[in-house]
C-alpha cells in the first residue's frame, strides 16, 4: 500500500502533512457532554475506522468533520480548513455518505448520479476529473438498475447509490457513516473492494464508522475507538490486539485428551510441544485475541 501511495503522491499535492487534524474537540448538547477532548490526526491516503458503542459520539464527530455541525470547542481541520467555514471549493474535495437518506425517490439512478456529478465540474483538477457515472454505477453493482427509479431500490441498493454519490466528485477525503448497514455478504465484499480501489488508486483519505469489527480489520490502516467522549485506542488492528493481550491460546489433543495453554510465545511453545511428543499431537489450534476481544476489553475498561 505504501508503494502505491508514493506512486500516486503527485496527485495529491494539495494535501500537505495531514488530511484531518482534531485536537481537544468538545461537543455538548445542553448539559450533556458528548465529546470531551477528542484528539487524532489522519494522514493523506489513510483509511481509518472509527469504532465505539452506540451513543459514543461517532456520528457527531463525523458531522463536525463534514462541516454540518459546529463544535462547542477544540480545533478541527480537514484539508487545512475549518469544516464549518470550508467554502464551496473545499466542499468539492469532500465526499459524504450519511446514515439515512431517502431523497430523490422519483429520479432514475443514472439521472440522479449524472446530475449530482455535474456540480463538481467547475472544481475538477486536471488528473482528478469527476468519475464517469456509467462506470461508477457498474462499480457499485447497480448496472442492472441504472434506469430504475430510486424509490424502487432495495435498502442495500439504495445504500450503494449513496456511496456512489459520495464518491462521484472524486473526493480527497471521504466520510462514510455506517456504509454497509443492511448489505448482504456479496454487497459487503463488493463495497470492500471499492474502498480498496479508492484508497489504492485514487489516494482517497477515508474515515468510516462501522459496527462490524471484521470490516474494520479488513479495510482500515488504523482503528480509532471512541468511548466516553474520548479516543481510548488508536492503532493498527494488529497493534491494538497486542496492546490488550500478547497471549495466544494453544489447543491440542494427545491420546484422546484435550489441552489448552495460554502463552505469549506460541511459536516456541508449539515447537517444544512437537519436540516432546512428536506425532502424538493432533487437532492443533493457535488462536490469538481477535479485534473483537480487544474491542470488548477496551470498551469494558473505559465503561468501568
Amino acid at each position, binding site marked *: 500500500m505504501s508503494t502505491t501511495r508514493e506512486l500516486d503522491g503527485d496527485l495529491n499535492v494539495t494535501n500537505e502533512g495531514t488530511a484531518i487534524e482534531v485536537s481537544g474537540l468538545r461537543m455538548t448538547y445542553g448539559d450533556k457532554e458528548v465529546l470531551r477532548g477528542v484528539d487524532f490526526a489522519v494522514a493523506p491516503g489513510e483509511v481509518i475506522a472509527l469504532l465505539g458503542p452506540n451513543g459514543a459520539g461517532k456520528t457527531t464527530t463525523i*458531522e463536525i468533520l463534514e462541516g454540518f455541525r459546529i463544535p462547542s470547542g477544540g480545533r478541527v481541520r480537514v484539508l487545512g480548513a475549518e469544516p464549518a467555514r470550508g467554502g464551496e471549493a473545499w466542499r468539492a474535495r469532500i465526499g459524504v455518505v*450519511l446514515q439515512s437518506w431517502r*431523497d430523490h425517490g*422519483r429520479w432514475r439512478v443514472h439521472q440522479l448520479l449524472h446530475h449530482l456529478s455535474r*456540480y463538481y465540474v467547475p472544481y475538477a483538477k486536471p488528473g482528478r476529473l469527476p468519475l464517469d457515472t456509467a462506470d461508477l454505477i457498474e462499480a457499485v453493482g447497480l448496472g442492472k438498475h441504472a434506469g430504475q427509479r430510486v424509490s424502487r431500490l432495495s435498502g442495500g441498493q439504495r445504500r450503494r447509490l449513496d456511496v456512489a454519490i459520495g464518491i462521484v466528485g472524486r473526493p480527497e477525503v471521504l466520510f462514510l457513516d455506517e456504509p454497509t448497514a443492511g448489505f448482504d455478504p456479496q454487497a459487503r465484499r463488493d463495497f470492500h473492494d471499492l474502498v480498496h480501489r479508492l484508497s489504492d488508486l485514487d489516494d482517497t483519505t477515508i474515515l468510516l464508522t462501522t459496527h462490524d469489527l471484521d470490516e474494520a480489520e479488513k479495510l482500515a490502516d488504523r482503528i480509532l475507538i471512541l468511548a466516553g467522549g474520548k479516543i481510548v485506542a488508536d492503532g493498527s488492528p494488529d497493534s491494538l490486539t497486542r496492546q490488550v493481550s500478547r497471549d495466544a491460546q494453544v489447543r491440542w489433543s494427545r491420546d484422546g485428551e484435550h489441552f489448552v495453554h495460554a502463552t505469549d510465545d506460541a511459536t516456541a511453545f508449539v515447537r517444544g510441544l512437537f519436540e516432546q511428543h512428536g506425532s502424538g499431537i493432533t487437532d492443533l489450534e493457535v488462536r490469538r485475541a481477535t479485534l473483537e476481544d480487544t474491542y470488548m476489553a477496551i470498551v469494558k475498561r473505559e465503561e468501568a
Partner: protein
Amino acid sequence: MNPTLHAARLGFARGWMEFKHQVTSAQDIGFVVITTAAFVVVLYFQRDATLPGTDLSLAAATLPGLLGLMIPINALMGAVGTLAVEREDGTLLRAKALPQGMVGYLVGKVVVLSISTLASLVVLLVAGLFLVPELAGTGVGGWLTIAWITVLGLLSALPLGAVIGAVAGSPQAAGGLVMLTVGGLTAISGVFYPITALAGWLQGLAHVFPLYWLGLGMRSALLPDSAAAAEIGGSWRPVETTLVLAAWAVAGLVLAPPILRRMARRESGSLMEQRRHRAMQRIG
C-alpha cells in the same frame, strides 16, 4: 466557469427534470385533474347566474378569481410542502453536501414550482374558456396583465412558502396550517362570490392578504371594463393591487435568504434522523 452560475444552470436542469417527474406521476396528475374538475363544476353551476349590477355570468367573474387562487395553491403550498418534506428525507442535506448545491436546489425549486403553477393556470384557463367563451376575446393588454399578476403572485408566494417550510416543525403541521389559511382566505377574498357581499371587517381583512388582489388583477385582465362596477369603489385599482402584491414579495424576499441560510446551516444527519423518528412515531 463561474461556479455559482454553473450551479444555477444545474438548478434549471433540476427544475425541468422535476417538472417532468410531476407530469409522469399519476398522483400529481390526479391532483391537477381533480382540482381542475372541481373548479369547472363550480363554473358550470354558476353559468346562469349573473354578476350583480352587470349582465356578465357569475362564472365569467369566478374564472379569473380561480386563476388567482391557483397561484397560492400551487406556488405557496408547493413551496411549504416540498421544503418541509425535503428537509426530512435528506434532499436538502444532499444539496448541502455538494459544492454550490444549495444554489442549485433553490433555483430548481423556483423553476419547478413556477412551471407547475403556470401549467395549472393554462389547464384551468383552457377548461374554463369552454364554459365562459365570452372571455376568449381578451386582448394583448389583458394577457400582459395576466402575466404581470402571475409574476407578482409567484414572487409573493414562493419566498413566503420557503420561509414557512423552513421554520415548520413537521411537514404535516406546515401543510395543514397553510391549507387552512388558504381555505379561510378563499372564503373571504371574493373568489367564488363578489367580496362586496361580505361584512366590512372581513373585507378589510381580505385586503391585507395577496389572494383578493390576485383575483382582482385577473378579473381586470379578463373581464370587460364595465364589470369594474361590481368591484369595491367601482374600479380595478391596479396601483393598489401592484403595491400590496409587491409589498408581500419584498417582505418575503427580505426574510427568506437569512431564514433559509439558518435552516441550511442547522441541517445535519442526526437532526434529520430525529425528525424521521418523530415521523415514524406519529404513524405508529
